């Protein structure tokens, strides 16, 4: 075959090339790969938009392994690095902090201060007293004098002195329970790992709280926000880039005792489940901060949440109060689209 003969027939060659290109396109169509499994003590859902099925499978394994490791390391009431840290804090003596828990404790101190003490994971003894340090919490609620005994000791993140890797507590009542923060920190770290593996578009949802990166093709990710009364979806939110959505609700962990409902979001000022709020939803670039903020804003309640949100640097907040009124920041209002009948809305700018 000569060069001149090749140039005489460009159409079949081009057609063949086009066919092969289209065929390859058909084989490598990107799609959303979904996986659901139990990890971190909750239901985890991983959605990855990719054409690489093998990458999606490896990513699922990575998330499982990461969350299992972090769950063991940070568990508040089972033996492990966090349990050992609590034992050493109770002695009041200085010790070298475990590297798996030190970054969390440093971050938690900063968020405790920024939230005016409403986010206070040093009150592990209070969570235990209420029966919420259990996989299946049950009543009865504690006696008022038991609660008062813990509040009088005022355990606080500020009682922990940290110098490099050395740590000590100046209050023997300090007992860490990072349940309101560890999940956000954990899925942030797991997502960072996925990025390192080459995942560019994904949602990682752990127990209803999620972090998203990228987008599935040409459209944004579509997220439903469940109604706090349990009936379907209240609103939808679109995510076009890297963001986290966290909700703290009184329906998540609770028990009933003599007709009264006791939920797990405890107010460190009263020692009681925080009242006045059904749920708080936060959109923020950092999942760990969104996790702590949703708890602190729930405790702050319908009057004080704007001040606390401003202190934490969170500008997208929706708080549903006990009367069903939706309090929102202007930035949140622009992102939320209510499904079905919208609740009454009050827009409150941050101070």
């Amino acid at each position, binding site marked *: 075959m000569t060069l001149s003969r090749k140039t005489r027939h460009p159409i079949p060659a081009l057609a063949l090339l086009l*066919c092969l290109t289209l065929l390859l396109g*058909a084989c490598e169509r990107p799609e959303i790969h979904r996986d*659901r499994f139990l990890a971190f003590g909750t239901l985890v859902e991983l*959605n990855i938009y990719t054409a690489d099925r093998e990458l999606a499978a490896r990513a699922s394994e990575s998330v499982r392994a990461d969350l299992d490791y972090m769950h063991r390391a940070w568990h508040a009431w089972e033996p492990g690095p966090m349990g050992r840290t609590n034992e050493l804090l109770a002695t009041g003596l200085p010790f070298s902090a475990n590297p798996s828990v030190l970054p969390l404790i440093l971050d938690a101190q900063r968020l405790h201060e920024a939230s005016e003490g409403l986010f206070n994971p040093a009150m592990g003894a209070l969570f235990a007293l209420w029966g919420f340090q259990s996989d*299946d919490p049950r009543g009865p609620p504690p006696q008022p004098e038991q609660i008062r005994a813990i509040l009088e000791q005022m355990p606080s993140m500020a009682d922990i002195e940290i110098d490099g890797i050395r740590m000590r507590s100046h209050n023997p009542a300090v007992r860490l329970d990072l349940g309101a923060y560890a999940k956000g920190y954990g899925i942030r770290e797991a997502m960072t790992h996925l990025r390192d593996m080459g995942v560019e578009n994904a949602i990682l949802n752990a127990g209803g709280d999620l972090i998203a990166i990228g987008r599935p093709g040409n459209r944004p990710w*579509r*997220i439903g926000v469940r109604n706090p009364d349990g009936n379907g*979806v209240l609103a939808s939110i679109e995510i076009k880039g890297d963001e986290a959505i966290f*909700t703290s609700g009184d329906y998540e962990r609770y028990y009933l005792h003599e007709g009264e409902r006791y939920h797990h979001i405890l107010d460190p000022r009263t020692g009681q489940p925080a009242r006045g709020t059904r749920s708080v939803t936060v959109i923020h670039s950092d999942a760990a901060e969104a996790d702590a903020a949703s708890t602190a804003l729930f405790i702050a309640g319908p009057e004080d949440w704007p001040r606390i949100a401003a202190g934490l640097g969170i500008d997208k907040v929706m708080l549903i109060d006990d009367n069903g009124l939706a309090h929102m920041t202007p930035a949140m209002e622009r992102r939320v689209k209510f499904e079905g009948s919208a609740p009454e809305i009050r827009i409150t700018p941050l101070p």
Partner: protein
Amino acid sequence: MMMTRADALVILLCSLLVAGSYAWLWTPAAPATQVRVVAGDREVARLPLDQPRQLEVAGPAGITLVEIRDGAVRCAASPGSQGICQQAGWLRQAGDMAVSLPNRIIIEVLGDEWVFDSVNY
């Protein structure tokens, strides 16, 4: 420019191959017809939604009873003290699910027609 019969045959075969692969690979997903039951880290059943049946699934806390009837599935009984698995009710849409954390069991309806990519709660 001349095109031989062989060239035409190549184009025809390619066209058929491409059309066939698109029909095969790009067929829209069928509506939700299956339920997947996961116990711990293992899928223990994948069942059609149009055939009534009951399935007992063992977990660390006891037995979870899965019931399929009238194109839907539910968690009919489960050992958790708060009945969260049963409260999910009848599941029939793709993505619907019931979960028993104490018994480490997930019951989920499979399919591609999801309204939301993920649900925040």
